[in-house]
């Protein structure tokens, strides 16, 4: 999983200077302190934070469904992918939630 993460990092971050800064940060032990997490979270405005938590929650839900399904049935990936209701839900979520470029204006926010 760690290797997959490392492989995806340069895929998403195409700016070399930012990529190096991110890689350096990942190798810095202090960056894993709770205070760093608190500082990071406080940098978000409430709307961004809630949106991010919902996105993370949806990802965790996906992992949980996958984990429980694979534990019950080794062929679960096939059965999940061929479940029409699940497929329809995934398509809807991708189309409706995928484009998440909000704006920074306060008129439509919490």
């Amino acid at each position: 999983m760690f290797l997959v993460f490392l492989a995806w990092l340069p895929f998403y971050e195409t700016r070399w200077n930012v990529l190096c800064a991110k890689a350096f940060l990942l190798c810095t032990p202090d960056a894993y302190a709770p205070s760093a997490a608190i500082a990071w979270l406080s940098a978000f405005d409430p709307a961004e934070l809630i949106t991010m938590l919902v996105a993370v929650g949806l990802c965790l839900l996906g992992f949980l469904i996958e984990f429980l399904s694979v534990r019950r049935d080794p062929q679960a990936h096939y059965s999940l992918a061929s479940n029409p209701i699940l497929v329809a839900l995934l398509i809807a979520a991708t189309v409706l939630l995928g484009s998440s470029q909000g704006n920074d204006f306060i008129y439509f926010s919490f």
Partner: protein
Amino acid sequence: MTSSISPSRHLFWVLLVSLAVSYIVGAAYTLLWNPEIRFWKEAYAVKMEHARLLDAAGQPKTVFVGGSSSAFQIDPQILDEKFGIPSVNMGMHAGIGARVIVALALPLLKPNDHLILNIEPDLLAGDLEPTPLGLQFLVATGNFPALSLLPSSAKATWDDALLALRPGLRNVVTMLGKVVAMRPIYRYSTEDIHLGGYLTTKQKGALAMKNTWPKTFTHTTDCFLSELASFTAKKNIVANYLLPWACFQRDTAASARRNFAQFAHHIDAFLPEIHDGQAGVDSQLEEFADTPLHMTQSGAQRRTNILGTTLNHILQTP
């Protein structure tokens, strides 16, 4: 009885139908129910109707083009009744991007009209490209072709516009949050839209700005301004730039004025600046409503009176 459709074909149709239904639902929400689009569409309709009435009366009009600071600062009724300047306030949501703001106003300009670009410095010196909200708004108002009136704005394609017709996670989460918490769906309502497109709000809480926007001009901005100047010259339209007012603390007001003066001086090469004596800075916090760019009614009244006097002075000067 077994189905005659194979499982893979069945799944293919599920995929296709889900895709089509999801897109239609997303587009319908975006164009018809998104509170942001709905409010600004109504404001846009009021502005357009006022412009149409002025055109029907055969009067050359002054068109203020800018973000919401323009919408909340300039009252066309005062300009018309007190100074004899028929005008339309085309101030729109700054989140739609400078190119879209200008594109929405260009079609209503007629020869002998007066265009006053009143866009916030950070918006004009920042990324001009249409935002997803801007593309959504252009489609919702049927104005997408207006983007091509300035050649450099014509890069956005229909593909971009159609792909933008989706709410996105943040909008969905915000909407659900507002419904669950029973909060007002949008900050402003139709009662806040007034004659000529002027907006007001009873919301308060503006904080003065501390720093100016340290923006430098890009070639893109220069090109955009040059095209706008050329477009207006060809149509025999007088075009100027006017700095919107922003609230600054008294101790930073002088440096903010200097920065804005430099900014406006650069634009002056394309669109001559209108000097109202404020250089885009005001320090009377009590006259700002919910943001340091949105003025209260009394603030907008003061601002419009100063503007009306300035414009009449310019018009009377040979």
